[in-house]
């Protein structure tokens, strides 16, 4: 090797771009968040305008914060740290630029389509199918750029932060693609391929692990890089970080069903979700303590260093959120907390405290280095920290109080548990109003802090010269030789073979029939014994395989993918195979009429599912309040499912036939004319807009493809059915004193609402076969 050295310049331009985008989009996302929180207090802020309505803006808030704020921040942190950890410039400037601009275009497209009501109707997966394809393509660009850079690295070992990034890239790709599988009915509309309980499981497998692998694992990678850098000392325990990584990767993916406790989701899935969630306590707290203890010896600097303040608080909030998450996953705690503001408080501990503060800390650390100028004002940064922390505490304390109040009031009974103590849903709403106002103030303070950061950064950057980091390397420096691990060698190794055999036998034991189950049980026992014996005899071979895995990125990536895929497959495949309409017992959904289907699409368009669940849980207060508990088969044809996750208003699973048509008409026109004190927006445009029935033939064709048993109607037959049902409803409304043309959207929505809860009774004979 020659002595001549060359200087490699890192691509920090793309880091600066993502960093600034994160700050700007973060401000937009949080501004919308404060607005939607205010709308819950003051319904007038919906302005009776479609694109400013709560149900359309709330997805904009969540998508902006998740994919724009955290997404851009994540890309900035990943690109900055990866280049330095592997001692190589990003592989392609073109791919880096394409990644940045492609991601920003996706965000702009989301900001336009969501207020227009173009949505898939699944939380955090609302974006329409053309944008889904764009997200997938840009994610592939990110992955290629990242792995290409790893392939050109000069540092053979992969630091734990890189492990977290790898897990993020492969897992998010898997989650996103599976949960967004849809069949288009037009350029802007599609139906998900999964329906009912299957869609619920896939959605929360995605939803929970979007939190895990988009909002947590990349930020943990960032923590493991930036926290030691800011504290100027190595991570407290590298060993603990290894345990943290593998435990999260193996365990997190199983926990999704805890979002569906006490619902019609099969019991075995609820149990799996709850148990694995509890298992997450240990690795999460291990990671939190590892982060905090990295600050040992640097605590005194926290008095003056805003970066360390933000990081210390962020890691503390990570600990709080990951304590609260498993707690909320206990079935009996979920009975109190689910559908209430407690969940909203929990989510914001994670996003405002963990993600937001990590973003702020990383930004304050990076900006002076990327623009080669000291921060304009350290005092302003410290002020940002204190305003932000007061904001978070006000917000989450208000939401915890509000959520527990809601849970207690809605579940309260008298007369030995036979009568609801607060039968009117609005009683709870009016009780929690002060807390809802406190939430606006807390969120507003946090946003004010964010604006302070924006001002501080602008003053810092203005007139400054951007600089790119550099390193010197030998001109002909080749990566140090590593012990290669081929793909074949990675798979045909004792740990992988015994793991696959073990999982296969365990699956046969749990899911198989009599003989298969017994064979699976014995197979699993044999597998464990054989693995132990082999390990005792050849432990060196096992250790050698693991050590080589740590310096071979491709086998590491594939095995990480298999680890996360296993949890999803074992939950999703049995559900998709077993819980089909043909196997349903007790009750089965009757397919919607064409008019009802059109009404349902309006329900999805307006985001009604964000405030109203359609799932009466197997809990006495739920049954007393809303009627008989929901059966799995009653939503089996729902593409997408509409079980909901929050009750700002009452459950609607059995609202059909509960009120006359005119009640719904007046209620949608002006909710307060029917329910005094309601905070629901007015929907005057539903009374004015003509229903689009031209798309119904395509929609029904797709529904048929998905397995919903619709006859092969001609467009004329569809129109005739729509006209007949709409005419009946319009005539009934006219009789009750409301004049409306039968072709208005409100008529279709009423048709849909009036059919909720109606199902085919399969009788007790089949059920008795249990």
């Amino acid at each position, binding site marked *: 090797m020659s002595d001549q050295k060359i200087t490699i310049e890192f691509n920090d331009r793309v880091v600066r771009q993502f960093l600034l985008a994160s700050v700007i989009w973060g401000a937009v996302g949080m501004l919308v968040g404060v607005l939607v929180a205010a709308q819950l207090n003051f319904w007038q802020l919906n302005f009776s305008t479609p694109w400013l309505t709560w149900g359309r803006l709330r997805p904009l808030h969540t998508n902006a914060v998740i994919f724009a704020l955290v997404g851009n921040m994540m890309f900035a942190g990943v690109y900055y740290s990866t280049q330095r950890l592997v001692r190589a410039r990003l592989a392609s400037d073109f791919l880096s630029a394409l990644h940045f601009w492609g991601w920003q275009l996706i965000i702009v497209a989301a900001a336009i389509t969501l207020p227009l009501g173009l949505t898939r109707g699944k939380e955090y997966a609302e974006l329409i199918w053309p944008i889904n394809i764009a997200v997938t393509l840009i994610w592939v660009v990110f992955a290629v750029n990242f792995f290409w850079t790893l392939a050109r690295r000069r540092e053979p070992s992969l*630091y734990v932060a890189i492990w977290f990034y790898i897990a993020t890239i492969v897992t998010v790709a898997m989650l996103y693609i599976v949960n967004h599988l849809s069949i288009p009915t037009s350029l802007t509309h599609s139906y998900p391929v999964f329906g009912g309980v299957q869609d619920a499981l896939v959605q929360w497998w995605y939803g929970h692990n979007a939190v895990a692998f988009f909002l947590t694992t990349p930020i943990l990678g960032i923590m493991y890089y930036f926290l*030691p850098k800011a504290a100027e000392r190595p991570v407290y325990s590298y060993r603990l970080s290894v345990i943290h990584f593998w435990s999260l990767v193996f365990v997190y993916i199983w926990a999704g069903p805890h979002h569906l406790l006490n619902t019609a989701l099969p019991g*075995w899935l609820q149990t799996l979700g709850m148990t694995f969630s509890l298992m997450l306590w240990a690795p999460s707290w291990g990671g939190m303590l590892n982060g905090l203890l990295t600050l040992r010896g640097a605590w005194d600097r926290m008095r003056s260093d805003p970066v360390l303040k933000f990081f210390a608080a962020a890691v503390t909030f990570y600990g709080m959120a990951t304590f609260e998450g498993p707690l909320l996953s206990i079935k009996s705690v979920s009975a109190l907390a689910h559908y209430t503001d407690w969940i909203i408080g929990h989510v914001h501990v994670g996003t405002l405290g963990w993600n937001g503060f990590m973003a702020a800390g990383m930004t304050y650390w990076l900006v002076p*280095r990327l623009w080669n100028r000291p921060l304009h004002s350290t005092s302003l940064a410290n002020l940002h920290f204190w305003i932000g922390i007061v904001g978070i505490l006000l917000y989450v304390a208000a939401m915890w109080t509000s959520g527990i109040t809601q849970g207690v009031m809605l579940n309260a009974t008298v007369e030995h548990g036979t009568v609801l103590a607060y039968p009117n849903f609005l009683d709870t709403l009016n009780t929690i109003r002060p807390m809802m106002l406190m939430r606006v103030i807390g969120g507003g303070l946090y946003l004010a802090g964010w604006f302070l950061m924006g001002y501080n950064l602008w003053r810092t950057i*203005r007139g400054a010269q951007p600089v790119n980091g550099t390193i010197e390397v030998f001109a002909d420096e080749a990566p140090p030789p590593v012990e290669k691990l081929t793909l074949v060698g990675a798979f045909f190794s004792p740990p992988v073979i015994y793991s696959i055999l073990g999982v296969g036998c365990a699956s046969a034991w749990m899911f198989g029939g009599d003989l298969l189950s017994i064979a699976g049980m014995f197979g699993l026992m044999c597998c464990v014994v054989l693995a132990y014996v082999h390990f005792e005899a050849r432990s060196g071979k096992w250790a050698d395989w693991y050590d080589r895995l740590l310096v071979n990125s491709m086998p590491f990536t594939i095995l990480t993918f298999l680890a996360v895929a296993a949890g999803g497959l074992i939950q999703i495949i049995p559900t998709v195979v077993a819980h089909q309409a043909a196997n349903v017992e007790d009750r089965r959904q009757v397919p919607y009429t064409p008019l009802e289907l059109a009404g349902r699409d309006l329900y999805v368009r307006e985001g009604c599912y964000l405030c109203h669940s359609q799932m009466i849980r197997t809990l006495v207060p739920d049954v007393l309040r809303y009627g008989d508990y929901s059966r799995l088969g009653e939503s089996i044809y729902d593409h997408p499912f509409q079980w909901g996750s929050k009750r700002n208003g009452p459950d609607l699973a059995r609202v059909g036939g509960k009120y006359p048509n005119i009640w719904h008409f007046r209620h949608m026109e002006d909710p307060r004319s029917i329910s005094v004190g309601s905070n629901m927006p007015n929907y005057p445009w539903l009374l004015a807009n003509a229903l689009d029935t031209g798309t119904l033939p395509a929609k029904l064709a797709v529904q048929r493809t998905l397995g919903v048993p619709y006859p092969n109607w001609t467009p004329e037959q569809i129109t005739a059915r729509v006209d007949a049902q709409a005419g009946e409803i319009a005539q009934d409304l006219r009789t009750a004193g409301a004049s409306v043309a039968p072709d208005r959207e409100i008529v279709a929505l009423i048709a849909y609402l009036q059919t909720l809860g109606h199902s085919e009774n399969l009788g007790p004979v089949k059920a008795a076969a*249990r």
Partner: protein
Amino acid sequence: MFQRLIYEDSAALFTVAAFVTAASIYTTIGWRALRMKRPQVERFADLPFVTSTPPARHDTDSDHAA
């Protein structure tokens, strides 16, 4: 093959299976991590410091007037 999921309440079995799975992962990874040699651990932990970073010194600089 999956018929039992519909007819049987296997909650207890799944709780045990979940616990055994997670516990075996913790044990295996914990053992593997503890067996890492000290030089190997120190080398990994020092990787963020292999590439030097220019200082920013929030803690010592007074407010900077633009």
